[in-house]
């Protein structure tokens, strides 16, 4: 009785569809979260990081 026999007998193939639905749901949720309006200021500040790296900043 090898591990591969057990795995073969377990009939796990249905889990692939379940996983796909879960992945897709997670993806949609994250897209909504990222592109939800607001917080522009924070994102703008973050995207300026490479440009501001020449000047020392106040404590953070």
């Amino acid at each position: 009785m090898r591990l591969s026999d057990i795995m073969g007998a377990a009939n796990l193939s249905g889990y692939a569809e379940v996983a796909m639905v879960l992945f897709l749901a997670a993806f949609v949720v994250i897209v909504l979260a990222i592109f939800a309006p607001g917080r522009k200021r924070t994102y703008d500040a973050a995207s300026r990081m490479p440009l501001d790296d020449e000047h020392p900043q106040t404590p953070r």
Partner: protein
Amino acid sequence: MNARLDSFSYDDDIVRKFLWAAMIWGLVGFLIGLIIAIQLPWPGFNAAPYLTFGRLRPLHTNAVIFAFAGNAFFCGAYYSTQRLLKTRMWSDALSKFHFWGWQAIIVAAAITLPLGLTQSKEYAELEWPIDIAIAVVWVAFAVNYFVTLTKRRERHIYVAIWFYIASIITVALLHIFNNLSVPAGPFKSYSIYAGVQDAFMQWWYGHNAVAFFLTTPFLGLMYYFMPKAADRPVFSYRLSILHFWSLVFLYIWAGPHHLHYTALPDWASTLGMLFSVMLWMPSWGGMVNGLLTLRGAWHKVTEDPILKFFVVAVTAYGMSTFEGPMLSIKSVNALAHYTDWIIAHVHTGALGWNGFLTFGMVYWLAPRLFQTEIYSKKLVNLHFWLATFGILLYVVAIYSAGATQGLMWRAFDETGRLQYPDFVETVIRLIPMYWVRVVGGTLYITGMLLALYNLYKTWAARPAAYEVPVVQAAPLNPVYVDDHAPEAGGLWARFTHMGWHRRWEGMPLFFSVMTAVAVIVASLFEIIPTFLIKSNVPTIASVKPYTPLELAGRNIYQREGCFNCHSQMVRPLTYETERYGDYSKPGESVYEHPFLWGSRRIGPDLAREGGKYPDLWHVRHMKNPREVTQKSIMPAYPHLETNVIDFPAIQKSVDAMAMIGVPYGDAVNTAPAMAKAQAEQLAASIEAAGGPKGLADKEIVALTAYLQRLGRDLKNATAGTAQQAAPAAAAPTAATAPAGPAGSR
């Protein structure tokens, strides 16, 4: 809040070192590429034994990937990481160890590959001692990097750093798990995986070498150096979050698209295809983010050659990442697989994306690192145009070569027979395009020479002593202040507020763990079923291990790099079975450590080679291919007739194979004697057929024995050695699996 400021300086010395390494090794890698480009249309340009196409092609790929792109990544990463984190690298000693260790590995590769020391897995050719060295150097780099992250003076880590982190972690995983092997000598080892599983692991690695060595490091560089050069922030930080996580999670799955229609189970290749198609979107997210960073700055592109390099680099990235998903669609892949189309595809990526991004970055860095003006802006412009035309010539010629050959392979005439039954016809047709490639490559290399001259002149004008500016920044606040606190709201409001991701950005080690989780989980989803579902590899009773002599022949086959031009995998497609015989079954490869399915056919497939030609044909063919196949472009291997077989070493090979589960029985005690007996028998039959005398201890006999064995187990249950079998028609045998591609549902 404390107002105390730390004073420190950045380590630019290491950046300068890596910059030179990248450019010098780049030139070497391109020149080797030019040599093998000339060897294809002009076989006389091969110099056996050390400088044949089969040995130089891996050297070219390794030099360009690990020496050129690798050093370029380190150069940009060391420069940008220190500045984005407001701290010097934690340990100068580790940085230096990383630099010299990496260069030593490259030198080791440049020596061992032409000597024929190879594991024969694409981009993982380097033998086991070098693999261990790579792991050690990589870990030193990683330790230095992660400790630097903890010493940072900038709370949040910028997107470029995310990409570096993903690269460092994933490359380590890929390298270690694909290179697991059992040594059979100081520079010989056998992969612990066999056949289908080995193929799966190899392309999990091979595809993700593209992903995490040629894509994510360079996206990190793009996210830092493009905004710097354009003096504009990146187009959308939101998009970069989505871009990063989807790329990291999806890329890992796509490996099986290198194995469509092979003996890999259907479910795996379908999964690989689906994820490859999905991958198109995050990749284009990256392209859009790069190109739109230039919004409102397009007028600068006309004046600034650095931006020109970046624009073409990102455009090339966009083109190759559209093409990749397209090529991963099975029906498209059926045409393109094994042809030059794939070669053109990778060169769009390597020459356009990696090359141009590196050039743009190097030209931007040079005046800052050498603290003087760039020597000549005109030369930078000239380099840009030469290299651009070089790429165009290269890809246009090689795309048409790929499509031409793919279409010729599958063409049937009106009587229902193969229109080009003779493989060499489909090769000769490509020769003019191969010469165009040589011209394109030469243009690209000319540009590289200009770049090196320009950099040298810039370096020559450097100040007597480099100025080391002292930077001041406040230390990290020990208390995490959330500048991003959500307004009141429920769980959903808090989630969509993305404060959690902002927090992750402030906790780089946790961020690294999450990145590792993403790639490991995605990997396991594919690896576990591949290794644990029995029906993936239905057993075939008549398949037996290679005899000791055939194993020695297989070692020679690997050493000469035959797998670079000859596949051993007949796909279940009409034109393919018509040309070569019965399609390959998963059960045939169970003793293949490593698998040798190949990925390019510059010569015909060899999976059904056994018994197709007399033994003497093989002897003559290896000595001078053009004696038996007019216009063949294969290199000549005269040394195989004079090299003596190392019989004692055969024992080591057999023992190593037995150790990883190949049922060798008695051969574990008597391998050399068994090999000698078979070699004498085969040499006698070659002599009887009118061939050269005294081959009984020569390498050509071992190689012939191996070639004559290929595909025989499926045809007859007796493991044939030197017996002459008439070329059998592709008749189904008792051992074949049910009709249809090797699937497992």
